[in-house]
């Protein structure tokens, strides 16, 4: 399995991960190598095997729909890099100056 720089850039964009030029090249090599090791799995025929996402035998864990205490707003916002009027503040996402033009 050999990745291209374009592959690395595509995945980095999906992951919202800013990478420098050298980082991209190093990741291209390392990920290609790791994916090469992972190809070992191709030798197993899994056509008839169901997937396992988790191993516990619990399903639909429910609780009564009751109002419980939650953290005070000030405590939740205390670590926020930017806040306005009790909200997390971010750059505009739709329209206006500084808004994202690429919604992908």
């Amino acid at each position, binding site marked *: 399995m050999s990745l291209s720089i374009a592959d690395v850039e595509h995945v980095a964009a999906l992951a919202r991960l800013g990478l420098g030029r050298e980082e991209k090249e190093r990741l291209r090599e390392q990920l290609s190598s790791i994916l090469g090791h*992972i190809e070992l799995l191709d030798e197993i025929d899994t056509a008839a095997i169901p997937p396992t996402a988790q191993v516990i035998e619990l399903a639909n864990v429910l609780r009564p729909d009751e109002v419980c205490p939650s953290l005070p707003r000030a405590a939740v916002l205390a670590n926020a890099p930017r806040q306005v009027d009790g909200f997390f503040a971010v750059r505009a996402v739709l329209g206006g100056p500084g808004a994202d033009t690429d919604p992908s």
Partner: protein
Amino acid sequence: MATALDAVGRPATDAPTDLSAAELRRRLDARELSAAEVTEAYLARIAALDPDLRCYITVMADVARAQAAAADDRIARGEAGPLTGIPVALKDNLCTTDADTTAASNILRGFRSPYDATVVTRLRGGGAVFLGKANTDEFAMGSSTENSAFFTTRNPWHTGRVPGGSSGGPAAAVAAGEAALGLGSDTGGSIRQPAGFCGVVGLKPTYGRVSRYGLLAFASSLDQIGPFARTVADAALLLGAIAGQDPMDATSAPEPVPDFAAALAGDADLRGVRIGVAAEYDVDGMEAGVKAAVDAAVGRLADLGAEIVPVRLPHTKYALATYYITAPAEASANLSRYDGVKYGLSVESETLRETYERTRGEGFGAEVKRRIMLGTYALSSGYYDAYYVKAQKVRTLIKRDFDQAFARVDAIVAPTSPTVAFPIGARTDDPYQMYLSDVFTIPANMAGIPGLAVPCGFADGLPVSLQILGKPFDEATILRLGHAYEQSEGWTDRRPDLP
């Protein structure tokens, strides 16, 4: 008791920093020691040793002293619990309201959680003393603590060697007498492998046995919190304090929690116990000294009366590849929360998207980026079936291997890691070489079963570790086996030869 071990380390002394938690409990209750004295002894040892060993990211001296004073009051009132006044190291991916929680990452430098992890709440309620937040590979991704964004912890048995990882900080702290007990997390071996490298006991409980609420999530279907201790009995004590269902973690299990300490009370006669040994764990690259020590431990278990039974775990060789799809895939989703908006580092830029990219690009270290990239790739359109779903199917096969083996045996024994602690810097250039040190621990996470690492001797002056795997929710059996083995040997009475 074996005599060859006399050459390695020194015998445990009567100092509080050498005693087991159970012996500290006895002396605290008998008023032979106060919690304040015990805590001061540990803080003094941290002050003396930690500038070199670097087990802790944050030492919580003020918190510890206040907790020790409260513990002494509680003991005086006759209301002490098993852990009242016992000093504990917490891995720095467990949320605490009274010390920063960084996951050893620049993206969380200075982060103060508004809530405690459930395990922290339980220990607080029990009167434990928190010595500090211990080092880890960044976001628990690694096998040596060399991926900590802050510094590498040194192995107390040989300071040129790694302590293992990711929970190298708490493992080394317990080994060095910088904590009586430790809490770590284990996603692919991150408790058992460093316990093995540092010559202490480490337990990954069954998935769901311990609440993960307040553990910074790495791979949510694999992560589990568990104890470090100097004896199996101490690990049982700590497991009992943290186990049980929690409304804050919907994946925590409603299984009743047995009295783990009581499970150790019987004699060491293992007649009637069937222990599996799998040829698949005899891999290329296993060090001769590790193999010899583990073989001798299996022989000792047989001497104690256990029946040794060959079992087959044919999909073992696929576990590592399966893990390196599943864990990064889950990590890539979990770590999307570090976006520079809610907490942690924020590199504000022209657009929100650029803020995300620059914050994450500057805040995450190389291994974390590697895993986010690998996981995002495995989940991306066009590759999801070939990688992620394929890995989930192989996970089914790995779990079936264990289901079939455990139909015939009560436990399975294997080495904890194929090597002893390796030199600092030896594996940092090749990520896959680093991943190989978890080849024996990963299958238990994939299957969700419990695994106990117990010291089983030394090779080249460094600790070797026996891993005992159990049936789901049957920690009691592996603790009983580990305790019986430990009592028949002297390994856990040795301490590294530090000042």
